[in-house]
């Protein structure tokens, strides 16, 4: 993709964001996303929009995503539950944002809730499944929502109630994952063309107890779930939730009597700060039980090799990560990538499904 392709510029690892603070990154990416409202939303940008709606915490970036979504023709109905989730998330933390005028000098003439509800309204009758929730919010009275938000709610309810557009049949309603699957190379376990782990197998890593080993030692010989996080992540739906879900995954695997057969590994993006004691505390707080197959790891040297090997969606500011997407890989016993989950929240079931054939293969392999 050419460098000035706006979709390429949305990638977290883009050099445009290197060395910047998170606020800057949110503003730059938000400006791109908001611009799609007028220019039309390219299919490749849809995952970025849906990601903001699902887990975004920056009022500016989420409002921008809501605007960008309105540039999609048509707006996928699958965005509706994500819009409603975002509304719930910002219900107590609405804030003013502005997209007019030059960046940084604009008046903040709208709010994140207003933009989200406008996008619900833009769905027209496709927003019908949300009518109940919208009415409930409006009926909550002035104690619950601001006057500006009430006005948008009325419009959205009006738009959703109209029956001019043909109603979609039930078969059209699909999950959010399906909406972005088309635009993503590796949804739900279909492996992309990423090289196996053995190429970076000699990278030295340290676990939560201080033990030093190589990545190959941590990951080869058994199927693995490998994901990434850092303890200073401020988005509770990203790293904190990832590690908590990893712990649940671990418990479910144990119930299947598979716990000895699968590596559960999460690596920090921020190895200089995430010293072993921090890793240990972070995992323990979220219910992870450590063992030879279940570790939190930091590279003892720079993280660059791991980042570029997996083409991780992460950028770095002057002190720590400035932005990252969710990245989770399912690896076979030889460290080959058998599935990956990126950007959107993954479900434990989907990861277990991707692991199933690998566990079966590993169990029948002699000597394993």
């Amino acid at each position: 993709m050419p460098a000035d392709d706006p979709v390429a510029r949305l990638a977290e690892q883009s050099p445009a964001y290197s060395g910047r603070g998170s606020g800057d990154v949110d503003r730059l990416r938000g400006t791109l996303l908001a611009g799609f409202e007028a220019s039309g939303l390219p299919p490749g940008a849809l995952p970025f929009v849906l990601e903001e709606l699902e887990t975004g915490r920056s009022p500016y970036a989420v409002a921008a995503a809501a605007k960008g979504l309105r540039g999609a023709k048509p707006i996928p109905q699958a965005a509706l539950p994500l819009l409603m989730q975002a509304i719930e998330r910002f219900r107590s933390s609405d804030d003013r944002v502005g997209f007019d005028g030059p960046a940084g000098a604009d008046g903040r003439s709208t709010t994140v809730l207003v933009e989200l509800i406008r996008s619900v309204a833009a769905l027209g009758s496709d927003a019908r499944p949300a009518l109940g929730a919208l009415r409930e919010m409006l009926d909550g009275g002035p104690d619950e929502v601001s006057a500006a938000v009430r006005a948008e709610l009325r419009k959205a309810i009006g738009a959703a109630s109209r029956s001019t557009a043909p109603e979609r049949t039930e078969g059209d309603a699909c999950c959010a994952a399906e909406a972005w699957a088309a635009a993503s190379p590796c949804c739900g376990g279909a492996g992309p063309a990423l090289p196996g782990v053995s190429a970076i197998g000699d990278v030295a890593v340290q676990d939560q107890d201080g033990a030093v080993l190589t990545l190959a030692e941590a990951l080869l010989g058994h199927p693995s779930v490998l994901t990434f996080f850092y303890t200073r992540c401020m988005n509770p739906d990203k790293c904190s939730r990832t590690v908590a879900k990893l712990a649940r995954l671990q418990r479910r695997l144990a119930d299947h009597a598979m716990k000895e057969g699968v590596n559960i590994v999460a690596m920090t993006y921020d190895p200089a700060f995430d010293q072993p004691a921090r890793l240990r505390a972070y995992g323990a707080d979220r219910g992870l039980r450590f063992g030879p197959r279940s570790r939190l790891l930091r590279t003892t040297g720079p993280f660059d090799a791991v980042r570029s090997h997996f083409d991780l969606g992460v950028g770095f500011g002057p002190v720590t990560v400035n932005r990252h997407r969710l990245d989770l890989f399912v690896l076979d016993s030889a460290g080959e990538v058998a599935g990956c989950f990126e950007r959107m929240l993954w479900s434990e079931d989907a990861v277990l499904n991707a692991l199933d054939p690998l566990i079966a293969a590993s169990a029948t392999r002699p000597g394993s």
Partner: protein
Amino acid sequence: MNVEFDIPGTDAQGRVFLTWSPIEARARLLQPPSGSTSVRVTLRNRGAAAGGRIVFNRVRAGSGTPTLTLDLPASGAAVSFWVAGEFQRPSVAYGDAVIEAVGPGSAGALGSRALMVRIRKNAQTLTPAERDRFVAAFGTLNGRGGGRFREFRDMHTDAADAEEHGNVGFLPWHRAYLLDLERELQAINPAVALPYWRFDRPAPNVFTRQFMGVSNSTGRVQFTPGHPLESWRTDGQPGINRSLSFNAAAAPAGLRNEAQTLSLGGPPASAAYGPFAIMEGNPHGRAHTSFGGFLRSIGTAARDPLFFMLHNNVDRLWAKWQWFNRRTDPANSRSFAPASPNRVGHRLPDTMWPWNGVTTSPRPSTAPGGGLAATAMTNAPGASPTVRSMIDYLAEAGGAALGFAYDDVPFEM
């Protein structure tokens, strides 16, 4: 001949802690004299003069006497009696309250049991030893950023706002939160009870370098060298940001005082929780914004240890209101109010996040800290408390109490 006591709630080290809430204990004779069917024994206080005092009763009651006479059968069968801390006579140290059994005539002391009447006190009135053991335990819980305090910090964030604030569950949620923290402190030092900062009165003893620290001109809290909170760390950062908008020798301005707060719900005959709970704004919110720094915002307030003393006073005000207006029965509609809107986590039968471990919407997506800390003292409220379980904290209606009490809020049936 000896008298043996069996007091429920005794911990693994044989320690006993009482509040104002009576518990049923038993006494029995060991090696009784031959020939008699029973021995008349008197239970009495034998603690330090300034220590905790105990009251006894044959039945569960709102009052008791400093001595109690029991006829203990020579068969060794146990006789039950009720024991509680004497209101406004709490302990200052473990073992300064003692139950002694004396026999008839010259038989003398037949048995004794040292214990503690462990009560949450006004921070302004703590002895240096009480103060020091509290800050030492708090420092250990924080563990220079590596201790279990992290979980408490993670429980009180913007992401969990709707579980905790702006609704009728505000008071019960914070009651459970403080109890969880206090039990963790007691696991470090069992003689600790969480003190409260009475924000409507001057508290010069609180804002000292020996206790909660003194703020410098840039709003950083300073302690004496070696103070356990000197190494306080939260969110990967050292230190505490706090500046006072009031003179440390005076009380903050603009707060409803205690009497005004207690009268919020109406006169005792009709006092109702709904109007009382508006104290969440004033004095609670106003107490927070008497400071600059961490305390000023929901998302950072729990990074300052003073937060827990501030909230303990909020909880005490509720407890005092409950007692004064007799609103400890959850079945009484005036003891609590319907959630507005009908939000989960704020209704009587609801379990509370994060102790319930629920992470599906509308609850936050992670539940830090696991279940509520257990204690040998009582099995209430269990690992996953409900809103209802927070109401009758002294178990005035019977059953198990939560194991804490305030120095100015009595047990009364």
